[in-house]
C-alpha cells in the first residue's frame, strides 16, 4: 500500500542502506544525505540513534570516494556529506568520536584545497565543529608545514576557513612555546586584523587571541607593543558590541590579558565596566549567560581589590538573585557558585552578605545536585564561605542547624563515585591526568586511571570545605564524627592520590584542633599509630607537614594526650625525631619542632624523650640538629626550636639542671647567646626566656 511504502522509506535503516548502496546513483545518495542531514540537525536523540545504526561510516565513505572528483554533482555530494559529518559532530562528543573513528578528518582537510568554494566552505564548517570538541586531534604548530597551512587558513578570504584557523588555535594552543611560536609566525597580527572583519571572524579572533595570551605575559606584551593602543582599543570597543557573544568574548580576552599581565587594565573605572558588562550578560538565557559567570569568576579569582570592587557593585546580591530565581541549568548554577566562591574567598564582607541573603541553603542543595560539576562548585563555595572563624562560630558550629545540614552531604561526597565530570582517556587511550594529580601519582597505569572514576576532583573539593567546617571550635565535633566522617577521612588519608591524602590529613589536623580527650581517642583509634607514622614519613612533604601538625594538635591540651606518641614503643615519636633530623623542607621541620616542643611541655619522661630525639647518643660528632635549626634562615623554625628549649629547661623540674648541662655541652647555650639580637622579635624574646632559665642553673659549665 502507498502509505506503508512511504513510511518504510523514512525508516533510518532504509536511509542508511540508500547511503551505502553501491548501486544508488549520485542523485539518490544526494537525496538520502539531505534527508539524513535534515533529520539530525539540532536533534541529539536522532544523532545518537543514527550513530548507533552506523550511519557515520556510510557518509564518510561517500565523502572519501567523491573527494577526488570535481564535477558539479560530485561537488554537491561533497557539500552534503561534509555538512552531514559536521552535523553529527556539532555539540556532541559521541558524534565527534564517530566521525573521527570513521576516518573523516583527512578527507575534510583535503576539501579545504578543493577548487569549488562551496565545497571548501562545507569542509571548513565541518572541521570547525570537530575543533569545538576536546576530542579533536591536537594540531602540532611546531611543525613548519602545519604552521604554513594554518597561516594560509587565516589569510583565506572565506570567513569559514579563517574561522577554522582560529578554531584550531583555540583548540590546540596550550603551551607557552606554542603561544610564542604562533606569535612569531605573525598570527597575532592577522588575528588583530580579523577583529575588524565579519561577526564570525571577530568572535573567532577574540577567542583565539585569548588562547594565545593565556598565562603568557611575553605574548601579551607583544600584542600591546608599539601598536598597543589600537589593538587593545579594538578589543575594548568590542565589549560594547551589539552581539552578546562578541561582548562576552571581548571581556574574556581582556580578562586573559589582565590575568597574564596584572600591570594592564589597572583603571578602576575600566574594571568596573567589565564587571557590569558581565553581570548584564548573565541575564542572557543561553550559553552566553552561562559563560558570563565563569568569566566573572576568572576576573575576580585571587584578586582582593577586584573582589572588593565587586562587593561595592553589589555583585554578591546579583549572583544570589540569579541563584534564587531557579530552576537553572546545571552549567549556570556551576558558574554562579564558582563566582560566589571566588567572591567569598578573601572578604568577610562578601561572606556576611551571602549569609544575610540566605542562599546558603541553595548552596547546600547544590551539594546533592545531579551534576558532579555543580556539586564540586558547591563545595568550592562552601569552602570559601567557611574560610572564616566568625562564620564557623556563628553559623556552622556544632549544634547549629547549618552544621548538620552541610556536614552530612559533604561527608557523602567523600565516597561520590560519579563519573560524569571528566573523561580520563583520550581516543588514543593515552591516560589523561586528572587536574589534582601529578603524573607520578597516576603511574601511567590504565588500571589506576580507571580507579580515578571515583572522582578525585570532587573528593578534593569536598575535603576543602570539610577542612574548614571541622574546625568548628567545639570540643566534641559531634555531628562530623557521628555521621562517619572520621572513618572516611582516615580511609582517604591512605589514598594513592597525593592531593586526596593531603586534604584528608589536613581535615583531620583541623578536626583535632582543641578536641577533647574522647574525640582525640576516637580519631586516633581509627587512624592508628602505624598509619599516622606512615603519613609523617609520606613521600610528599606537604602531607608530612599536615601529619605533623595533626600530631601537634593531638599532644596539645590535656597533658595525658602526650602519651599517644609513646604508644607502640614510641613509633610516632621516633618518626617525628627522624623527620626533625632529616627533613629538607622548613615547613615540615617547623611542625616537627612544635610537636617536640609540645611533648617537652609535659613531665620529666616526656622532656627526656625529646632530649633523646634531639641529641641522640649515637656517638656521632656532627653538629646537633638543634643548633642547625636555631641557625636556620626561617624565623618560624628558629622560634619553634627556641620554644622547645624553653620547655626543656622549664624551671621547677627536677631534671632541668642536667638537661641544661647537656645543652651547654652541646653548644646550645653559646648559640643562644649569639641570637639575643635576632632580627625576628618572636625569636629574640624566646631566646631571652630560654637564656634566663639557663642562667638560673649557673652558666652550665659546672
Amino acid at each position: 500500500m502507498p502509505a506503508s511504502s512511504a513510511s518504510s522509506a523514512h525508516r533510518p535503516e532504509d536511509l542508511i542502506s540508500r547511503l551505502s548502496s553501491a548501486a544508488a546513483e549520485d542523485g539518490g545518495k544526494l537525496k538520502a544525505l539531505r534527508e539524513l542531514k535534515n533529520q539530525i540537525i539540532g536533534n541529539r536523540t536522532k544523532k545518537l540513534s543514527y550513530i548507533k545504526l552506523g550511519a557515520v561510516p556510510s557518509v564518510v565513505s561517500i565523502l572519501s570516494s567523491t573527494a577526488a572528483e570535481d564535477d558539479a554533482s560530485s561537488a554537491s555530494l561533497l557539500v552534503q556529506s561534509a555538512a552531514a559529518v559536521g552535523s553529527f559532530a556539532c555539540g556532541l562528543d559521541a558524534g565527534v568520536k564517530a566521525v573521527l573513528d570513521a576516518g573523516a578528518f583527512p578527507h575534510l582537510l583535503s576539501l579545504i584545497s578543493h577548487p569549488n568554494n562551496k565545497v571548501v566552505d562545507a569542509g571548513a564548517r565541518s572541521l570547525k565543529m570537530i575543533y569545538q570538541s576536546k576530542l579533536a586531534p591536537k594540531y602540532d604548530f611546531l611543525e613548519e608545514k602545519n604552521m604554513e597551512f594554518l597561516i594560509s587558513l587565516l589569510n583565506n578570504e572565506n570567513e569559514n576557513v579563517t574561522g577554522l584557523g582560529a578554531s584550531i588555535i583555540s583548540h590546540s594552543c596550550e603551551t607557552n612555546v606554542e603561544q610564542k611560536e604562533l606569535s612569531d609566525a605573525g598570527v597575532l597580527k592577522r588575528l588583530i586584523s580579523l577583529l575588524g572583519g565579519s561577526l564570525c571572524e571577530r568572535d573567532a579572533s577574540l577567542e583565539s587571541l585569548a588562547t594565545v595570551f593565556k598565562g603568557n605575559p611575553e605574548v601579551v606584551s607583544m600584542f600591546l607593543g608599539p601598536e598597543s593602543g589600537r589593538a587593545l582599543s579594538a578589543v575594548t570597543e568590542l565589549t560594547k558590541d551589539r552581539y552578546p557573544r562578541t561582548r562576552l568574548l571581548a571581556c574574556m580576552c581582556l580578562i586573559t590579558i589582565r590575568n597574564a599581565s596584572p600591570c594592564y587594565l589597572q583603571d578602576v573605572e575600566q574594571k568596573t565596566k567589565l564587571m557590569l558588562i558581565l553581570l548584564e550578560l548573565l541575564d542572557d538565557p543561553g550559553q552566553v549567560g552561562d559563560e558570563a559567570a565563569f568569566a566573572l569568576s576568572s576576573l575576580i579569582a585571587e584578586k582582593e581589590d577586584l573582589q572588593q570592587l565587586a562587593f561595592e557593585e553589589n555583585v554578591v546580591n546579583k549572583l544570589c538573585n540569579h541563584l534564587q530565581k531557579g530552576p537553572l541549568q546545571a552549567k549556570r548554577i556551576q558558574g554562579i557558585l564558582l563566582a560566589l566562591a571566588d567572591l567569598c574567598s578573601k572578604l568577610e564582607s562578601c561572606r556576611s552578605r551571602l549569609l544575610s541573603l540566605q542562599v546558603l541553603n541553595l548552596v547546600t542543595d547544590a551539594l546533592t545536585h545531579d551534576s558532579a560539576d555543580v556539586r564540586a562548585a558547591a563545595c568550592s563555595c562552601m569552602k570559601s564561605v567557611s574560610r572564616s572563624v566568625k562564620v564557623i562560630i556563628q553559623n556552622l558550629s556544632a549544634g547549629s542547624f547549618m552544621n548538620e545540614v552541610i556536614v552530612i552531604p559533604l561527608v557523602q561526597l567523600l565516597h561520590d563515585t560519579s563519573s560524569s565530570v571528566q573523561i580520563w582517556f583520550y581516543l588514543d587511550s593515552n591516560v589523561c591526568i586528572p587536574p589534582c594529580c601529578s603524573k607520578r601519582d597516576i603511574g601511567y597505569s590504565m588500571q589506576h586511571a580507571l580507579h580515578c572514576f571515583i572522582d578525585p576532583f570532587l573528593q578534593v573539593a569536598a575535603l576543602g570545605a570539610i577542612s574548614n567546617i571541622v574546625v568548628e571550635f567545639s570540643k566534641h565535633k559531634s555531628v562530623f564524627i557521628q555521621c562517619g566522617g572520621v572513618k572516611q577521612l582516615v580511609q582517604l588519608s591512605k589514598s594513592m592520590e597525593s592531593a586526596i591524602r593531603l586534604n584528608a590529613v589536613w581535615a583531620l589536623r583541623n578536626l583535632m584542633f582543641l578536641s577533647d580527650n574522647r574525640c582525640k581517642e576516637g580519631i586516633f583509634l581509627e587512624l592508628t599509630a602505624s598509619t599516622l607514622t606512615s603519613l609523617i614519613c609520606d613521600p610528599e612533604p606537604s602531607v608530612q607537614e599536615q601529619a605533623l601538625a595533626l600530631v601537634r594538635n593531638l599532644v596539645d591540651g590535656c597533658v595525658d594526650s602526650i602519651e599517644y606518641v609513646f604508644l607502640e614503643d614510641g613509633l610516632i615519636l621516633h618518626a617525628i625525631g627522624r623527620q626533625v633530623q632529616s627533613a629538607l623542607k622548613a615547613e615540615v621541620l617547623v611542625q616537627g619542632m612544635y610537636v617536640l616542643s609540645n611533648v617537652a611541655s609535659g613531665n620529666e619522661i616526656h622532656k627526656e624523650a625529646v632530649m633523646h630525639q634531639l641529641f641522640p647518643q649515637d656517638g656521632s660528632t656532627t653538629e646537633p640538629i638543634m643548633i642547625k635549626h636555631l641557625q636556620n634562615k626561617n624565623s618560624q623554625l628558629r622560634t619553634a626550636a627556641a620554644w622547645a628549649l624553653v620547655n626543656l629547661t622549664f624551671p621547677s623540674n627536677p631534671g632541668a639542671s642536667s638537661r641544661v648541662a647537656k645543652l651547654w655541652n652541646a653548644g646550645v647555650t653559646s648559640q643562644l647567646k649569639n641570637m639575643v639580637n635576632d632580627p625576628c622579635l618572636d625569636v629574640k624574646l624566646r631566646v631571652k626566656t630560654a637564656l634566663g632559665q639557663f642562667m638560673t642553673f649557673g652558666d652550665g659549665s659546672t
Partner: protein
Amino acid sequence: MPVRVVENSAPSQVSGANPGHTSPPACTLLSVGQAFSGTQNVSSLQKDEAWRVNVRIQGCDLDHGYLCGTMEALNVPMADTPVAPIYSCYLVFILDAWAWVVTFWEGEIVDAKNHTFFTGKWEATSEVDIRHWTKFPSFSPLLSQVEVDGGRSLDLSSYPHIFMRWKEQYFVNVGTDCGLTIAGFYYVCFSCSDGSINGFYYDPNSSPFQKLELKSNHEGRSGFSFSSYELQ
C-alpha cells in the same frame, strides 16, 4: 622607609606621606589556640569584686589586623538585688540563672595599617582613646606621635607590645534575650615577652576603667604548648 626600633625605646616614625605597611610581630603567644586566665575587676563604690575570666584565641589574621576568640566569665556572682550603675559588660541583676557566660569577641590590632590608636566608633572619642591607652605604661613612648596622627606613621613591627581593641560581638552559650549587654569594648595591651594581657573596659554607661588582667595559661603543663589549624 620604616626604621626598626630598639626594644623599650619609642618606635620610629615612618617617613613620607604614604607610610608603608608594617605588621605587628607574629607572636606565637598570641596565636590560635592560646589560652589566658585571670580576672576582671568590677569593683564599685559599694564593694570590691573581681570575676574570673578565661580567654581563648580562635582566629588570627595579621594581614587584616584581625583577631578573634572567646571570653568566658566564670562564677559570675548571683546578685541579690539589682545594682546600678551597670558593671562591666554584664547586667549583674539578672545573672542568677548562669554561673558562666561565654562571648565571642573580635579584635582590631593597632598596626598603623588596618587600625590606628584612634577608635573612631563605639562612642570612643580620641580623648577617650588617649585616656585609656595611657593607662598602659608601655604606651608612653608612643603618646606624642599618637596625639599627632593616631599612630598612623609609627612602625610597630618590632615593638614588644601589641595594642588591640576587643569588642564582644555576641553571646555563645546564652540567647540574645538573656538580658545581658556587651555594648562596650576593651582597650588591650599584650606583652609579647610573657603573653600577659592587660585591658580596660570602656562603655560610657558602665563604671570606668574596669581592669582585665590575664596571664598565659599553661593548662597543667610544665611549659608552653601550641596547637594550630589552617583554613583552606
